[in-house]
């Protein structure tokens, strides 16, 4: 654990210095935690004026007393899912750069000749991707809550967040997703020498989330706590598999003999 912490300490300094990671993260936080929620909630009345939206609410929720409140509640469900893009993106940006940097510098062999264990190396790399991802995600959810509560209070005089769905998405679903994407990014990075192709995997993994949002908007189902918990369990079941593959990929022998290295 001490050696994994040494790796984490060194690599986190490099992550902090990496402007590309911070700039991308800042843009995503601004869009998903500030601009989108503020815009959608403040403009919800005009959305409601649209005949299709009114028909959609009638179809999905029946006749309701406060259609604006229902609409904001519906928007929030989509926003929570959209915010999952943040842990996915941060993990998929950091994990591949951490692995491919070792390849670019040819540092894997001298590193493996030290008393470090391959599992400690994997743990160090994993922490480097997951911890910033969780910190940034938590900050994003807090910003989202503040923005949503201020705008909803202005519109309707109530504070919709935090609620149980928010807690599940922010503190259960996000870490699980971050872990899976980190593991998959590490596995992909072992076979790649190009950082961009390895980073692209994050945006591919997140596609099912857009599918869920699309199905909700099409009125197929409405996300509930039960659905979220089922989603958490499904993803949790995936975790041991990706971990097992990552541990296998990070075997000392595999790193030297099977990883694709820079020429």
């Amino acid at each position, binding site marked *: 654990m001490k050696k994994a912490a*040494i790796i984490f300490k060194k690599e986190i300094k*490099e992550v902090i210095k990496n402007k590309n990671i911070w700039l991308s993260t800042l843009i995503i936080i601004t869009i998903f935690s500030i601009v989108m929620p503020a815009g959608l909630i403040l403009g919800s009345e005009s959305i409601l004026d649209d005949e299709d939206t009114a028909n959609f609410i009638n179809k999905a929720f029946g006749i309701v007393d406060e259609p604006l409140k229902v609409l904001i509640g519906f928007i929030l469900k989509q926003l929570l899912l959209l915010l999952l893009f943040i842990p996915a993106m941060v993990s998929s940006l950091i994990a591949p750069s951490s692995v491919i940097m070792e390849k670019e*510098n040819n540092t894997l*062999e*001298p590193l*493996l*000749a030290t*008393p470090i264990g391959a599992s400690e190396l994997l743990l160090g790399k994993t922490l480097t991707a997951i911890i910033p991802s969780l910190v940034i995600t938590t900050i994003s959810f807090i910003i989202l809550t503040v923005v949503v509560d201020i705008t909803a209070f202005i519109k309707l005089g109530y504070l919709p967040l935090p609620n149980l769905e928010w807690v599940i998405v922010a503190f259960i679903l996000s870490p699980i997703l971050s872990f899976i994407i980190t593991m998959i990014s590490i596995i992909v990075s072992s076979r790649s020498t190009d950082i961009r192709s390895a980073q692209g995997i994050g945006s591919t993994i997140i596609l099912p989330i857009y599918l869920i949002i699309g199905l909700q908007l099409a009125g197929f189902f409405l996300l509930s706590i039960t659905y979220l918990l089922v989603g958490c369990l499904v993803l949790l079941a995936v975790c041991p598999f990706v971990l097992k593959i990552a541990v296998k990929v990070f075997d000392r*022998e595999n790193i030297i003999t099977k990883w694709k290295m820079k020429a």
Partner: protein
Amino acid sequence: MIKVKNLTRKFEDITAVENISFDIGESEIFGFLGPNGAGKTTTIRMLSTIISPTSGSINIDNRDTKSGGEHIRSIIGLLTESPGLYEKISAYANLDYFSSFYDITPERRRKNIEKYLKMFGLWERKDDLAGTYSKGMKQKLALSRALVHEPKILFLDEPTAGLDPESAYMVRNFIESLKKEKTTVFLCTHNLEEASNLSDRVCIIKRKIIRIATLDELQNSSENKIVEIIFKDKAEKYIKLLEEINELKDIKIDDNKATVAIEKPETSNPEIIKKLTVNGAQILYFNEVKATLEEIYLGLIKDEEAK
């Protein structure tokens, strides 16, 4: 210190190293020589427990590599073929990072980093990014990294590659000085003069071991001794005479010097001198010339290829 027995390593259908065995003692400098693709790097990787053998055993500091990997890695230092440095952090940070994986106090770590950076003339630029270093400076930094935790065994893969003559001389002297500190050195090099000057014994490998011996043993074990005959006049005059003597082979003439290979010089030399002088040759000198490691190496590799 290092005991290798019947070591074989295969990569799918390719056998990189086949059934090699050797022992290396404490504070010995062991030259490991062979052409490209001979299995040198694979052997170093197995000895430093980075990869495991397909069969055979390695015992280092009384520990088997299969079970004692972490202990072995804690007492070895490895200089890889490419320097392998983090280019975006400083030279000091590189050494500090790598040395922090070893069980040494932060104070000793600091002292050692300073010692080696000063020794290799890098101290003034310790805070510069490693990526801004020249090839030679990177090599010296990588060598410092291999030494900073004071290893008992040092694996050096081409330690003077990319160094200017002055730095290479300094590194060679340093390797020689390691003997006094009881450090065992496994020296992999293509520089045969370097191997010849530094090594207590050399091992010539081409997938299998061709020969392990001291330089003296190699020179004395050669079947043909090289003899240099200096005549008073042009050696060309005596070429026919030399060719008529059965004991002589590989005759080379250069001005008043003839270089020849002689089988069993102890018995042949008096006869050869007699024949030459009887036929009017005036011999100024008749010297045995020791074959260089390069000549022996090339001869052994050539013989191996002919098999």
